[in-house]
């Protein structure tokens, strides 16, 4: 649906569930994603898929991220029905082979284009945490500004960690030209 230089953002498909379930076995991903590490069954991956399909027209837009013809992760914009044009962005690349090579940036830029150009957002926000430096670098490179660090909110691998709130305003967005 959205074609970048390295990635395609497309609809989620039932056959993505198996690969997503594999990603769900990577305990470090939970920490990076600010979620609780727990055993995650295939049924849960299926339920998450069904939920993403069902809620797609309601308040959020879920995309599968595809690279080299493979499902490598997913991303979303949430808050489509909320007033005042604030959308929240989320992205996970579960396939470690695609870390550190600009796939996240490519997908994030596509999401910004989707939010600002197609959906008319005024402000796009996201939350990550202070130890996820790769994500913070990616978001900065895409134009996000750090605006707040709620202190010691999350427990991640042995310690309390600060959250990082970032946002990009419509007038700061470069239109996807870089």
């Amino acid at each position, binding site marked *: 649906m959205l074609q970048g230089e390295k990635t395609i953002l497309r609809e989620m498909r039932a056959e993505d569930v198996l690969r997503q379930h594999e990603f769900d076995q990577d305990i470090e991903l939970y920490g990076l994603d600010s979620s609780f590490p727990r055993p995650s069954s295939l049924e849960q991956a299926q339920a998450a898929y069904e939920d993403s399909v069902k809620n797609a027209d309601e308040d959020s837009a879920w995309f599968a991220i595809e690279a080299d013809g493979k499902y490598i992760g997913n991303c979303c914009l949430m808050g489509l029905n909320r007033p*005042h044009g*604030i959308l929240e962005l989320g992205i996970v690349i579960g396939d470690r082979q695609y870390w550190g090579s600009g796939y996240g940036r490519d997908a994030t830029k596509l999401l910004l284009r989707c939010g600002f150009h197609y959906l008319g957002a005024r402000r796009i926000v996201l939350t990550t945490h202070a130890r996820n430096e790769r994500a913070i670098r990616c978001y900065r490179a895409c134009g996000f*500004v750090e605006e*707040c660090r*709620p*202190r*010691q909110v*999350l427990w991640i691998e042995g310690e309390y960690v600060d959250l990082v709130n970032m*946002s990009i305003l419509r007038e700061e967005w470069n239109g996807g030209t870089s």
Partner: protein
Amino acid sequence: MLKGERVLLRPMQQEDIARQHAFNQDVQLAGLECRTARPAPLEKAQAFYEMRVKPADHLAPFAIEAEGQYIGHCELWNVGDRYGNLALTISIGARACWGKGYGREVVRLLLGYGFHYLGARRIHLEVQAKNERALRCFRACGFVEEGRLRKEVWVEGEYTDLVRMSLLGEEWAASEKEAAYVAR
């Protein structure tokens, strides 16, 4: 249940509904609290009361009493959170009671309750950037500004920043020690 020098934090009572209903009509108050300004029927105040007197695991709701009257409400949220991360909210609807330091007294009582009695690790809150009276109050009570979500809320004619603040248990304990030392 919690008694300060001039304020009392107690459960909400049925008699408080009428005054809360009157506060609900104050359109400026809605802006100060980042609520959507709209007409609020009496049933809303009644539902508010019923929600507060029902047992809830995650919420500690108080009515604020001063000068012998109900003047507003305050609450701690996420009580029992596994990571001790609680949120604080406060609303003094009675304009005659603004600027008299009641808010500070209430917040200090809530902090003592949260950190001492509930074992909170951190207590946080959000306030819109134009609500300077509230910002002064929270700063005076030791809250640290963590950042500002830019143009997050619409308040009387413009998009306004939302300020996030927090207080950690060790910061609170240090300020309590200092207060005790000064008192001696």
